Structure formats: structure tokens, C-alpha cells
């Protein structure tokens, strides 16, 4: 790790100001950034910690939706979202291990948009709104491919607003080594229809399986998608699974998500 300066502002405005400095880099839970720095693959001049801003932390109900502050840790979501949005709590409680969950944050995960991360599936399947220091971004516009998002340089995720579904489930199939999602599927049933988001599978990052959404909106049963399949084109192929395998997992996990939605 190279030397760096460290600041921990207590307001969003101060954080935005600090991030405008040359070589500044936002630091939330640091679960990706710090290992990268330790390997000397990143060397920011200034780390701007976002975890000292009180009003970007916590879980609350806001007009029938669940509001999660950007700097809220997975452990807090796992606990505090439980009675409002249990599938979201399940997802948060299944990320990494206790050490990761007590440091990693929802904002950090979304800003990084790792193609195998769990949170993007929840945000996309819930049709959530990502709130930043300067605007509101619909989930469908936020994710723009592997490690790419709609965020501008220095833009900070201050919160995420999740519409609460009637039923939902997140089913994750672990990559055996990292235990990231080899493939993960979030299924959410709303009055307006069903949304299905798949993470870990596509080379373009999280995506909606619209064909399944249509079928499940008509009938929210595993049988409704039994005849569907996902094409393997564009799926990730690596040591841990071929493109066809990931396409299969997405299909199987979607069915299991429907069966276990609560």
C-alpha cells in the first residue's frame, strides 16, 4: 500500500468538496478498494471516507418504501430491513462473512457494481431509486455494465429507496472460492407485475430477465417459467462455470426464487 491522506467529512457537502481534490477517491466500507490498494493496484492520493456522515446511515420507512442510507452496512440491513423487506435482509445477511458485513455498505457495493455482487440484483428487481448528492436515478438507468454505473466522478450515493413488494426472494448460488454470486437471482412480485434480476451471470453485469417477468406476472408459479430458457450468449464463462452453466443456473434459481418467495 502506498501512502495516502485520509479525511472523514461529517456532511455530504463536505464529502463532495473533498472528492473534488486531485487524486481523491471515495471510501465506503473498503471491501474492494482496500485490498486493491494493498496490492498496489490502486494508489489514490486522498481517501474520503463516507462513513462519518450520520444522515447516510440507517434503514427507515419512507412513504411505503424502504429507505436505506448509502453508508449503511450489510449487517445493519440484514437486521433492520427484516420486518419490512425480508428478502432484502436475506440478501444482505448472505454477503461475504460477518467481517465483510460489518464493514461493507450498500452504497459502496452499488457504486462498484461488481458483476457478481448481490445488491445490484435487489435494486434492479425492486425497481429501486438510487439517490445521490445531486439527483435520483432509476435502477433501470443506474447499472451500465460490468463495473460501470450512471454515477459521475465524485457523485456520492446517499441512499436507496426500495418499493416494498408483496413477495420476494433472493437465491444465490455461491462461486465456490470467493462465495460471490456465481449466479444470483432476485425475484420480486409487485401489484404492478413481477421483476426478475440476475447477477453474476452476464458479462454486462446485472440484468432483468424480461421473458420470465412476463410469464411470472401472468402466473407467479415455478411452472410458469419451466419451459423458458436463457440464451448463453453474453454470459460469463470462466473456471467456475461455462456460459451455458450460468444460463442454466439463472433459470433454475429463478424457479427456486418463485417457490420460496415470502
Amino acid at each position, binding site marked *: 500500500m502506498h501512502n495516502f491522506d485520509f479525511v472523514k467529512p461529517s456532511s455530504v457537502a463536505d464529502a463532495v468538496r473533498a472528492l473534488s481534490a486531485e487524486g481523491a477517491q471515495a471510501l465506503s466500507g473498503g471491501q474492494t478498494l482496500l485490498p486493491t490498494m494493498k*496490492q*498496489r493496484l490502486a494508489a489514490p492520493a486522498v481517501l474520503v471516507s463516507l462513513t462519518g456522515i450520520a444522515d447516510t446511515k440507517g434503514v427507515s420507512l419512507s412513504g411505503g418504501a424502504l429507505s436505506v442510507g448509502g453508508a449503511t452496512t450489510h449487517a445493519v440491513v440484514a437486521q433492520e430491513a427484516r420486518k419490512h423487506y425480508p428478502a432484502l435482509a436475506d440478501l444482505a445477511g448472505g454477503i461475504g462473512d460477518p467481517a465483510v458485513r460489518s464493514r461493507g455498505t450498500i452504497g459502496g457495493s452499488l457504486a462498484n457494481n461488481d458483476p457478481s455482487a448481490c445488491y445490484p440484483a435487489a435494486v434492479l428487481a425492486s425497481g429501486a431509486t438510487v439517490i445521490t448528492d445531486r439527483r435520483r436515478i432509476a435502477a433501470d438507468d443506474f447499472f451500465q455494465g460490468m463495473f460501470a454505473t450512471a454515477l459521475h466522478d465524485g457523485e456520492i450515493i446517499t441512499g436507496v429507496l426500495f418499493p416494498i413488494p408483496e413477495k420476494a426472494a433472493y437465491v444465490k*448460488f455461491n462461486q*465456490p*472460492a*470467493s462465495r460471490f454470486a*456465481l449466479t444470483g437471482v432476485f425475484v420480486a412480485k409487485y401489484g404492478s407485475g413481477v421483476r426478475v434480476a440476475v447477477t453474476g451471470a452476464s458479462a454486462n453485469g446485472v440484468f432483468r430477465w424480461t421473458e420470465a417477468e412476463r410469464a411470472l406476472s401472468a402466473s407467479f408459479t415455478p411452472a410458469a417459467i419451466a419451459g423458458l430458457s436463457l440464451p448463453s450468449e453474453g454470459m460469463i464463462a470462466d*473456471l*467456475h*462455470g*461455462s456460459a*451455458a*452453466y450460468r444460463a*442454466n*443456473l439463472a433459470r*433454475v434459481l429463478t424457479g427456486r426464487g418463485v417457490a420460496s418467495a415470502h
Partner: protein
Amino acid sequence: MPKDGGIGASTVRREDIRFLTGKGRYTADINLRGQAYACFLRSEVAHGRINRIDTAEARAMPGVLAVMTGADFAAMGGNPAGWHIPSRNGEAMKEPKRPVLAHGKVRHVGDAYAVVVAETLEQARDAAGAVVADITELPAVVDMAQAVANPDLRVHDEIANNVCFDWGWIEDNRAAVDAAFKTAPHVTTLELVNNRLVPNAMEPRASIGDYDPGTGDYKLYTTSQNPHLSRLLISAFVMGIPENKLTVIAPDVGGGFGSKIYHYGEEAAVLAASRALNRPVKWVADRSESFLSDAHGRDHVTRIELATDLEGNFLALRTETLANVGAYLSNFATATPTFLHGTLMAGPYRTPLVYVNVKAVFTNTAPVDAYRGAGRPEATFSIERVVDKMCRELKLDPVAVRRKNLIQPDQYPYTTPVGLVYDTGNYPATLDKLIEIADFSGFEARRAESARRGKLRGLGLSTWIEACGIAPSNLVGVLGARVGLYDAATVRVNATGNISVMTGAHSHGQGHETVFAQIVSDKLGIPASSIDIVHGDTSKIPFGMGSYGSRSLAVGGSAMVKAVDKIIAKGKKIAAHMLEAAEGDIVFEDGKFSVTGTDKSKTFGEIAFSAYVPHNYPLESLEPGLEETAFYDPANFTYPAGAYACEVEVDAETGRVEVVGFACADDFGNVMNPMIVNGQVHGGVAQGIGQALLEAAAYDDNGQLLTGSYMDYAMPRADDLPMFTVDHSCNTPCTHNPLGVKGCGEAGAIGSPPAVVNAVIDALHRGGHTHVTHIDMPLTPSRVWSAIQN
């Protein structure tokens, strides 16, 4: 009942107190006054010609004390192979020089070619980034079949076809084996891969070189399983430092699994740097360096054939193996796929005819050497998989087939067709015990219950044997070993009656400090708390060969018992004098020397005191003092054996395998500490399940390690494993060592992989996927799913 704290007691491990409270003292914990820090530069390409290494800018960086490259070590000796394996045609094996730092060429990703030494680690790393290496990348050869077939691809310019040796065992038997295959009613053939593994000791390698300019003495603190062997290699082969001027200290070592047997170039480099700078130089590997540069394990590609009659009686066995040795020969790389593999190809069976062919192949990958089990897991896996495949082909019961081919209890000593003499065993007994403890009779009900949950349940079996307690020196000498494989112990009774035992064995997790004290306590009637076990420091311990190959107790422990016997014999002489009796009338029992048939006696403490304060002592015929050393060279290998059963559930939709049951019935001979033996089996089985389902070191075609971190290299975790059922009640004591012990450290890793794979194949067949005859390890969800699809 065992004596309290003596042989057979499940004494709690005394060393765990310091390990669990953070008081262990590992190499990285040692900080010497004035020490500097080393950072190695490692090749980023698998194969390349070094044109020029420009160190000028790095030397000018803050805090930099020295930059050394391969050229600085070119005149030094190479790190040698410990075993010469001639080819079938009598040719000597190919032994390319393995330099301290790569010189001329780099031959694998991670091959160290320079070292920067600086005041701080950060400065050393900064300066390493300023070293400019002009290296022309050359085509890499990674795949063994390609390495053997393509004469244009050479890891070492002077070795055509990259073959180190082409070994046949036993060559004289080959014609008879081939003839048996020609007439056999049935032949089962299987091609399989024994996957390459990264050892992943919890503690990465680390070394501190400490040269004392006042005395000219060198000290090396290092992560070693055998400090005397490392000292010998450094002194006699690599650096020429006289042995009496070099002390090697392996303090607490956090696991090795074989990877810390070997001498590595970093050890010589920190010694040389310390000598050049007149100050200590420390290096601690990070995890990435461990992945790239620790000696890996396994990596065989094998074709095995089993000839049988139609009732499943084994008639002959034949194998051809390509064994990867990586870019350079690590110290035991040549012995592992040959005398620790080919000689085990009879397994626990009466197969009358066996022939083994092994070609060791150089590739542009990290060196491969012994890893927990070392050759014997490869042998067991090949045999137990082909036996299972044969049973399926002939629709025979895998238990019955194994049972009728096992060597019977009245056949010992049993000479195998591959050159070993099994001294004792009872393989049918462990198989019967296994069927009982694994509840074979309840399997069908469990299978039906799994089926109700949509899971395919399977039951897999393996019977295994190993040769350990390595090894009779005269025998291994004939077979090409360049070292002896005895061990040594010194038992020092102090004047006040407590005891220090200096052992050549090295504990890096095994629990020697506890078990060895139990044995001495049992033999001498002294409380274990008064006995200390000293290991790991060549300036304190006698010349022993260290710990690997499940040898510590069988060989090192036997040396210790011999030394204790000498203590008792001398004590009797002292007691006879003090008690005014004939030496022949003195009996020693429960810590007391008595005159037989009388109430006259002296305690062990009184005898010890007299030996050091010899006022009433037979000085004219006996030296004072009570300290004895013994060397023990085993008369034979020991032959632990057992039978393992694995039960799995397979999720056919995803290919995921869950191990839901695992049972082990082992024969380790006499058991000194059942709790520690259970722990050794648990750990070995965890590693075996890891190999079977999770672990694989994968290189791409350019020789880049794809699994260079825990993001991609899957280690077994507690929730990947079931509760284990372990039994070692069917024991037949070893006939040729004083404790009757056989060794248990590697067993779990040897017996478990085939049981797991056999269980998965069984589950798939029971689920109707009968086209699947084999899946190569690791049986990842993706591979199992693909096998089902095809």
C-alpha cells in the same frame, strides 16, 4: 486404561495454549536488531530470456541497501534433487540447475530473479518497482502432453521433450503384465487427472538471514519442516557455508503439508544479503507469493487399466502416468511420483501382476513436490476409481469385490509385486468396521429421504494403504535417495530430575510437544509436566531428518524410545551401585528402581541427582551425567491402512455436491493420543474433500496462474464438511518399531478423494445418469452439471 497422561491418553495439546492466546513465535514474529527487509522480484511471464536487469534507479531509492540479481548467485551451487531416478533404459535423470535466483531465463510465473533489500519493507517494495527487467517472453509449455510431444518447446534448452525421466516399475515384470492383459476376460480402462493443488499452509513462508561478522556464524530463521535437512542442503550444495557455522532455526511453523520440507532460494538469498550487509535480512511471503512460488502438489495425468476375470478377481494392473515436476526439480519431486507412488500400486489387494510407468515432465509452472500423502493419494485414487468403474461395468458389488481381493490377515508378511513387504494388517476388519460405522444398511432409507427432497444420494467407498514412516536408509539408498532417512533424539535428564527431550522431528501443527511428552512420561514414570520437547533448532537438536511422510512418531518417536531405554539401562547401573545389588536384580517400574524381591528402591529423581552429584557413584566404571542420544533407522516402512465411506447428495439441476456423511475405519497400529489422531484424520479428510470437490491450481495456456488468490482457489471451509465418524479400533501394531505405531498424518488425504468421487458417480447412476463413468477432480458444480448434460 492408559496411565494418566501416558501412552493412549487423549491429553489436551499443551502447545495450543500458546497458539490460541497469540503467544506462538513464528518466523514473522521474530525481529532482530538492525534488520533490513527483502522484497523479491518475480517473473510475470511463464518463460522468458533475461536480457538485462537494470538496478541503477532502484539502488538510488531511499533506504535501499542492496539489489541482487541472479548474476550475483551464478557461481553458487544449485538446489539439488534429493533422489536420483534412472530411466527404464538406464539413462540418468535430467537435473537442470536450480539457481538461488533465476539467471539467463525465467521459467515460471513467480520465478524470482532479483531481490531488493532496504531499511523498511515499504522502501524495498517501492524500489522493487523501479527495477527494470528486460525479459523477452518465450513460448510457454504448460500442458504435459504438449511438453512431451513438441520438441520445439523446451523449459530447459538442454532437455529435449522436457522429460526428466521415464521410469518403469518393475521393468522386469512388464512382459508378464502385458501378457496377462492379452488373455484377461475383462479389462477396465480409465483416464484421469489428479489435480494440481496449492498447499496453502496458514503461515506463508518466511526467512531471516542473520550473519554475525564477529564470529562468522550464520543463523537462518525459517519456515521449515526439517531444519537439519535445510542446513545440509544450504551447506553442502548451495552456499558452501560450513555446517558448523550455520544454525537453522524453524520456530513455531504454521502448517506445511510438505511445502516446507524443501529448501527454497529465498533462504539462501537472505543469508547472502545478510553476509553482504552485516545485518539481519528478513523476508515474509505474502499470500500471492505463496500461491506462485510454494511447491505445488499432485498434478498427474494417468491412464490406468485393470484386468479381471468376470467375477471381479484382479489379474493385473497397468498404469502410465505423466507427472508434472514444474520448471525445476524441488528436493523430493523425483521421489514423489515414483517410489512414493509406483510402489503403492498394489494397494491393499492381492493383484498378482502390476506395472507402473511414470514420465516426469518439466513445464513452465511452479515446481511440484510432495504434498500431504505425496504420491500415495495419487496411487490410491487411480486404483480405487478403476476398481469402482470395473464393478459398474461387470455389475458387481463394490464391497464384495474389494473384500475378495484384499490381502488376508494370514498372508503377512506380504510381498507385493511392486517391491514392498507389508509387515502386518487386517484389511477385512477395517472394511467390516466401516460398513458398521457408516451404517451401510441404512443407506437405502437415507437415499429415499433425499429423493423426496429432490436430491440424488450416493455412497462411495475406498480402501487404502500407504507406506510411511519413511524410511530404511539402506533400502532408499539402493533406490536412489541421496540422504539417509533415520531420525534422532537426545533425552537429557537434568540434575533435579526433570527432562528435556531434543528431537529431530519438527512439529508444525501435529502436537509433538504433547505426544512425545506422553510417551517419555509413560516410559519413565515422570509426570509429563516435567518433560519438555525441544525441536526446530539445529544448535540444540541432534541430526534428524524432520517431519513429513507420517514419520515423526514411527521414526523420531522410536529414536526417542531408544534413548529412553538407554537412560533406564544407565539408571539401573547407578541404582545397583547405590542399592548394593547386582545390576541384573534391578527392576525399573513406575519411576522407581527396585531390587527385585526386596523393598529396597531408589526413585528416578534420586538416581538423576546421583548422576550429577556423583558422591556415591561407580565412577571407575560409569561416567557421571544422565543424557543419552539415539539414532533410529527403521527396518521397513510402516503400512497404515483403512477403509473410507463417503455419502453425498447431488443437486442434479445445479450440479452441486454436498458431502453429507464421511466415515473412516483406520489401522494406525498403536495409538498414542486418540484425540490427536482423530484431529489428524479430520484434517486429512478435509484436505481430501477439498481436492475432490473444490481445489485446483489452474494455469492458462500462457502459464499464468488463474487461481492465484482465494477469490478463485477454493479452500474447504467448515460448512463444506460433514461431521466425521472416525474409528481406529482395528489396529494391528507395527511389527518392527518399539511403539508399534504406523503414522496417521496423511491417511485422511489419501483415502478420501476416491471415496468422494465414487459417491458422486454412484449418486448419478442411481439417479439414472448412467452415461457418466468419470468426472475429473475437482467435482465442481459446473463440471458435475456438464457431465449430467452430456
